[in-house]
């Protein structure tokens, strides 16, 4: 039996990883239009480069990497409005997000650099391990571990400056901010 037809393989990848990719994009893109555009462009890339998509769960990390690049490029210079995903666009408009506007911890998180937020989000939102983060970011495991440690420390420092809500975050965050184990 030969390899599966491109359509079959793409459909398997799409059905298996659409929720993960859509969650990733939803958590980072702004408007429903942007969400739909970025999801469409990510999977269009996967379709056109189907043979570059790794097998198994590595495909998810590969797709995160593509989505990350699409997000970075999407807002550069030119608008890229796709004619695809009309219905998805409508669906995305109904998705709600938790209101964290007045959450001081969220404000502290927002004050971090983009790279720090992305590292922390890949771990806390996508549930990735250090080596998996390294794959998405295209860096070594050691570099990912170090960058992640620094990002956590910077957030802990921001959180420690929050007063009087500090108690909410616990002593361990404060310890981290101070560089203690």
């Amino acid at each position, binding site marked *: 039996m030969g*390899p599966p037809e491109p*359509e079959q393989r793409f459909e398997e990848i799409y059905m298996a990883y659409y929720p993960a990719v859509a969650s990733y994009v939803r958590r980072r893109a702004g408007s429903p239009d942007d969400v739909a555009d970025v999801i469409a462009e990510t999977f269009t890339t996967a379709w056109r480069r189907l043979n570059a998509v790794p097998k198994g769960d590595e495909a998810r990390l590969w797709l995160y990497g593509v989505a990350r690049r699409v997000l970075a490029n999407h807002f550069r210079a030119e608008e890229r409005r796709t004619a695809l995903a009309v219905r998805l666009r409508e669906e995305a408009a109904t998705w709600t997000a938790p209101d964290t506007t007045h959450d001081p911890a969220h404000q502290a998180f927002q004050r971090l650099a983009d790279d720090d937020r992305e590292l922390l989000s890949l771990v806390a939102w996508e549930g990735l391990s250090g080596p998996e983060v390294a794959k998405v970011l295209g860096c070594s495991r050691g570099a990912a571990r170090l960058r992640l440690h620094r990002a956590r420390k910077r957030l802990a420092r921001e959180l420690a400056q929050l007063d009087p809500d500090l108690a909410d975050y*616990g002593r361990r965050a404060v310890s981290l901010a101070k560089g203690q*184990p």
Partner: protein
Amino acid sequence: MTRNVDDIVARFAPPAVSTVSEGARELMHEIMADPTAPEPVKSRRRLNLRMAIPAGALLAAGAVAATTWLLPVSPAAALDIKEDNGYYVIEVKDLYANPKVYEKQLRDAGLKITLRVIPATAAYEGQVFPTSPDMKYLEEIKGIYPPGPCERVDGCAIGVKIPKNFSGVADVAVSRKARTGEKYQSTTTFDAKGEPMHCVPYLNKTVTEVTALLKERGVRVNKYADLTPIGAGDMRSVPGNWYVDGGMLTEPGVAFLSVSEMPFPEEEIARLNQKSVKGYGCPIS
């Protein structure tokens, strides 16, 4: 220790998407209907497309100053590779060379780089797009952009610059002008900067009107798609009084149009016009 910080971050996460919705399934079928089919498994030969940069283009004056020739330049050389100020400066001399020729030259220079020259729509001609094996965009590999105006989406590169200390593996796709009848491997909407309908109002005009506008610009339409939720997908022809909401060129002089029997809602038009004015400086309706 770290768990505590991670838990705090976790609580900001908007909810996950847990299902493949109707809209998502529709998108999947739209993508598979894309005229740019996936590269076949053994298709490197098919991608034998070569270059991306105007043949015989000169390097920017600043980039050629004090260069050292690394390789003898013979009429057969597909690439000129020079050393300049910590960079390898690469100019594609033969846009249609066998990719193996590029590969050999790059390997001889000690670079683990694959250079692919792909046919692209006008907006992307000259685009330099370097990626790592895991599809990360490589910031350190850059196009060489001459001074002066550039009416394209992603710059008008005339060469590629790679840091001499670059030790990774990279795939650099360079987009070139397509030949007649050659399908684009990289394309975008027909109103993007550099495309025939750039700053030409088309949204909600009829198929007859837009087809005429395209004809004036040397473009014919060979396919239509109704991408609305109740749409019929790809069609060879549609009534002339249907409405156009988008389109893209799939090869030189040939376009596909996104159409609908119903006009676009007014409020949506206002929003898209606003986006277009912001991005392009002109409305689309």
